[in-house]
Structure formats: C-alpha cells, structure tokens
C-alpha cells in the first residue's frame, strides 16, 4: 500500500549535474511558514483556555527589547511556559526526528516500508526502559531521569548489534542488515517480555512508556533531545545527494565513486541517534516515520535533497498537530498520541495516495 511507484531512472538523478529536484527557496519558506502556523496554533489552544491576545503578548515579551504586560496570572504563565510550550517544542522535535530518520532509512535500504525502528531501535529502547523500571535504582533525587538514558542506550546498542551482525555476513548488503535487525529485535523483545512478566508490578509503568507520551514533556526532555537532533539533522541533510546516488543500487553507486557501505553506516548511525533520542523522551510513536516521508514523496518528489528538509518540517508539523488533537479532543482528558497519529494519519495518507494515483 505504501509502495510508491518507481519507474527506473525516474527518481534517481544519477549524475551530480543540474538536478531537477533541488529544494526551491520558495517551497522551503512555505513549509517553514506552515510549521510556524501549526506551532502557534498549538501554543494558543489547549485544555486550559488562555486568552490568545495575552499569550501573544506574553510570547512577544520574551523577545529582546520588547516589554509587554500580558495580563496572564502566574499560574497561567506557568502553564504556558512550563507545560504547553515545551510540549509543542518537544512534539516538533520528536516528529521531525522520526520523519527524517524514516526518510533516511527508506533511502539507505531502498525499502519503502523501512521505518526508524527497522533495525531494532524500538525493541532496544523497550528493553532498556523495562530494565530501568524493573531493576534501576531510585532516581527520584537525581538531576536526570534514568529511564530516557536507558532507552537511548538500548536503542543505540540494538542497532549497533544489528549492524555488527549484518556486517559479518557474507554479503554486506542492505538485505542482510535488515534481516539481522529483525533477529536482534526479536531477541531483545523476548528478553523484555520475560523481564516484564517476572516483575509484574512494573507492568503499568512499562506500558505507559511504550504507549508513547508527550503528556509529561518539559524543557528537560527538550534539552536531552536537542543536541542529537542537531547532529543527526546536519549529517543526514548533508548526505542527501549521496542518498540519491545510492538509490540506483550499490554497484552502480560504487561505479560512480560512492562507497555504499560507508554512506549507509554514516546515515544509519545519524538516523539511529535521532530515533533513539526521540524514543527516549516520548516512548514509541509509530507511523510518523512512514507516512510523512511518503507523503512528501507523493506531493513533492523523491530526491533526498528535497525529501530530507521537507520531511523534517512536515514531521514536526504533523506531530504537533497530532499532539494538539491528543490533548484537546477529549479535553481535559488525554488520548494516547500513538492512537492519534495512526487514526488521523492513516486516512490522510490514503487520501494522498489516491490523489497521486489520479493525477496524470
């Protein structure tokens, strides 16, 4: 269903020369404006009604050289600055990372079904989180939470294991790598399920984590993700052209002087860092890494020089919107974000798919 139609040579600019699919400044500007509008909407709307004018004044008041009096109470200011804003920012970061990582994985593995969890990041993070919950020391007094660290380490270790396993195979092909990812994921999930059954009192917290959450997002989580997000973004975006070359196949790429295995390693490493950081603070949020890049492909084309930046922006906007729905549809109760991404994301994606088929 999610397979985009690929005619040979259609989406693979082989030579560096003048590419048809370079990102135009206008497109980029429009996308950024869209993201800004979505973010603003998400900051203005929430379970607690804050006067939009006052919120805008309050936000403007933080700009240098601007002094305003917004009229928000201390409580309302706390809601805005410490609860709503970090949640919007974190939602954007997580969405951006998952979408970018998804696009990168799909490019590296030439597999439309690849998602950021393909090489076992989800299973590794799940095991790390479960171990931290079941056996970790009481970290309530620590400056940082153990849980996101453990999830991050688990995700990175899982992908590293999958990579090592895939490398030692006869052929260092993308397929070997995917298969070893499947094996690693299955193995880690088995351990995780076992630990979870043994320590049944941790069940509630483990499920709460796995279900995905931005509910308790704060600036601490933002600070945790931001550095990895920055590094991964830069690396993946810089490799856009090489990913386009890789799209023609490993052998063809090497004949053009591109070392496929090396590009793959670098991009996978960067995408994994992004995924692990996102998973560590938000649990497992599915679907973003699949539908956002594919939607971009369908509407804007599949060159990675275009796909990367646009996936980044669209992923951020999509998750901010999904989280907006999660916290307002049942207000003041919450919906699990994973339910929202799939519930609204799947029909939307189907529409895009239909529209692109009907187009000449």
């Amino acid at each position: 269903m999610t397979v985009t139609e690929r005619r040979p040579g259609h989406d693979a600019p082989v030579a560096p020369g003048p590419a048809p699919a370079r990102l135009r400044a206008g497109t980029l500007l429009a996308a950024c404006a869209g993201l800004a509008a979505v973010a603003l909407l998400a900051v203005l709307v929430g379970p607690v009604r804050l006067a939009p004018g006052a919120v805008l004044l309050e936000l403007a008041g933080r700009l240098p050289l601007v002094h305003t009096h917004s009229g928000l109470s201390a409580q309302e200011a706390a809601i805005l600055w410490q609860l709503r804003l970090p949640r919007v920012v974190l939602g954007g970061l997580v969405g951006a990372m998952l979408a970018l990582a998804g696009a990168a994985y799909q490019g590296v593995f030439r597999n439309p079904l690849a998602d950021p969890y393909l090489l076992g990041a989800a299973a590794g993070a799940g095991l790390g989180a479960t171990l931290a919950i079941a056996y970790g020391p009481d970290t309530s007094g620590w400056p940082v939470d153990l849980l996101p660290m453990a999830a991050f380490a688990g995700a990175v270790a899982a992908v590293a294991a999958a990579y090592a396993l895939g490398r030692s195979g006869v052929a260092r092909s993308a397929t070997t790598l995917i298969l070893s990812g499947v094996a690693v994921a299955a193995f880690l999930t088995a351990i995780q399920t076992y630990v979870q059954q043994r320590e049944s009192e941790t069940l509630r917290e483990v499920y709460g984590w796995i279900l995905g959450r931005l509910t308790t997002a704060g600036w601490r989580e933002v600070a945790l993700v931001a550095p990895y997000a920055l590094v991964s973004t830069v690396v993946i975006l810089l490799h856009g052209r090489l990913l386009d070359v890789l799209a023609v196949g490993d052998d063809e790429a090497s004949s053009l002087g591109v070392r496929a295995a090396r590009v793959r390693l670098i991009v996978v490493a960067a995408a994994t860092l992004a995924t692990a950081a996102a998973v560590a603070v938000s649990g497992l949020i599915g679907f973003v890494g699949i539908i956002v890049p594919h939607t971009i492909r369908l509407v804007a084309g599949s060159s990675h020089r275009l796909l990367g930046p646009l996936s980044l922006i669209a992923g951020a906007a999509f998750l901010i919107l999904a989280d907006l729905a999660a916290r307002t549809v049942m207000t003041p109760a919450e919906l699990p974000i994973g339910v929202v991404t799939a519930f609204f994301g799947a029909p939307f994606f189907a529409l895009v798919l239909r529209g692109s088929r009907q187009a000449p």
Partner: protein
Amino acid sequence: MRRSLVPLLLLLALLAAGCGRDGSTSQEPPAAKRIVSMSPTATEMLFAIGAGPQVVAVDSNSNYPKEAPKTDLSAYQPNLEAIAGYKPDLVVYSDDPGELAAGLAKLGIPAMKEPAAKSLDDTYAQLDQLGRATGHPAEAAKVTTTMKAEIAKIVAAGRPERPLTYYHELDKNLYSATSKTFIGQLYTLLGMENIADLADKDKSGYPQLSAEYVVKADPDLIFLADTKCCGQSARTVAARDGWKQITAVRSGGVVELDDDVASRWGPRVVDFLKTIAAKAQTLEAVGS
C-alpha cells in the same frame, strides 16, 4: 506501534472484565479447606475473616498479610496446571484474562469470581460470600460491622467546612480516578471534590489528565497512588515543570499513598480513609 497496541487492548479488556458486574459464580461448596487466591484483595479478605489457615497458595501480587503463602502464580497469566498442583477445593480470582474459569470448570475445581468492587456494598457482599464459602460467616459479618462502624466514625469526624479539591494520581502519565470509581467514592465520603470528574468524557472512570488541566484545577490535595510502581513522591511532584504553582504542592498537601492499599477493595480501605481524613484535617487546621 501495532505490536504495542496489543498489550493495551489486553489491559483494557482486563479492566473491562474487572468492571463486569456478574458477581460470583457462587457454587458454595461446604467450607473450602484448600483455597488458592489469585486476587490480592481476596487474600486480604480471607485472612481478615479468619480463613487464612485454609489458604494454601496466593498469587505473586498477594503481599498482604505477611503470613499469606505467596507463590509464583501469576494472576495476569494464570497457569492452570500450577494452580491445580495445589489441589485446591476453591479458587478465588478477580479477573479472568483467559480461560481460567473454563479451565477450572473442566478440572472440576470450584471457583469464585470476586471482581473489583464498584462500591463499599460490593466489598461487604464479597466478605459475606467468602465467609459463607469458607465456613466463617459470623467472622465475615463481624468484619463488615466493624468496617461500617469505623468508617462512620471517620466520616463523622472528618467533614470539612469547605470542600477540599483533590487529584488522585494512578501513574506518572497522569491517569486518574474519578469520584464514580470505588476509590473516588471513599474521597466523596469525606466531602472532597475530585478534579478528574470533568475530564471523564467517556465515563471510563479512569481518564488521563493534561498537566495543564491539573495545574489550572489547582487541587488542595494530591494523592499519589504511584509511589511503589513508579517511584513518585512529594519531592518528584514538586520537581515537575509548572507543578510548584499548585496549592497542594505549596502547602504540603501531597500525600504518598501505598499503591496496594489504594487499589484494593478489602478491609484495609478503613486504613486508607484514616490516612486521607487525617491529612484533610491537618490541612484544615493550617488553613483556618
């Protein structure tokens, strides 16, 4: 994601099963002598009514009272063979995640379902059923009478002049329980107002609240029923972003509950009521 939804559905099914109101399959054999309890609450009830010596095994979560013969039996994934190994003449359980009831019936082992109580009356009814099934009807009646008397005493002493608002936290993701739930009714007895009631649009009784909403609702009291499961405490709550604004956090109104006592519907609800009544009174004294 699809994979992670399966456990959620299971959990929901469990909850739904717990809320099922079909009562017990009371076959009531004459005074069971070898009881296996798959429910921590039933275990507490059995020991309270003096049927403890007849209990041969309890599930892995039955951690009270201490003398209960705790085993590895899992109530989440009951193993029929392991249960049958104790040669029980009565199995008590609260939820049936799979084929527990059907399997026990096949093996000819009498079973009683004592699901999560929806009100104190359910608790009293379950004590009565267990009393009759184990040959301790008089003790069961006495436990009920004592509970009723103690609760009446606490309620009489603890009615505040101004209704205190509270937030009952089930886990770190801000799942809460409304005043319609069993636990919520206990707070209502003391005249407290539940901030989660407005959030329960789908009437599940257990809505997940937004942090924004909790801060805005500004409860006088916060009760943490996630101290054991999730390591929450007055300190961790105060450290959450934006929560310092809340009256309960500023005025020492955060109460660390025992997760188990706060999630079971046995005789220890009296202890629970005492805890929250005492806290409400100290807060009243400070406030006045």
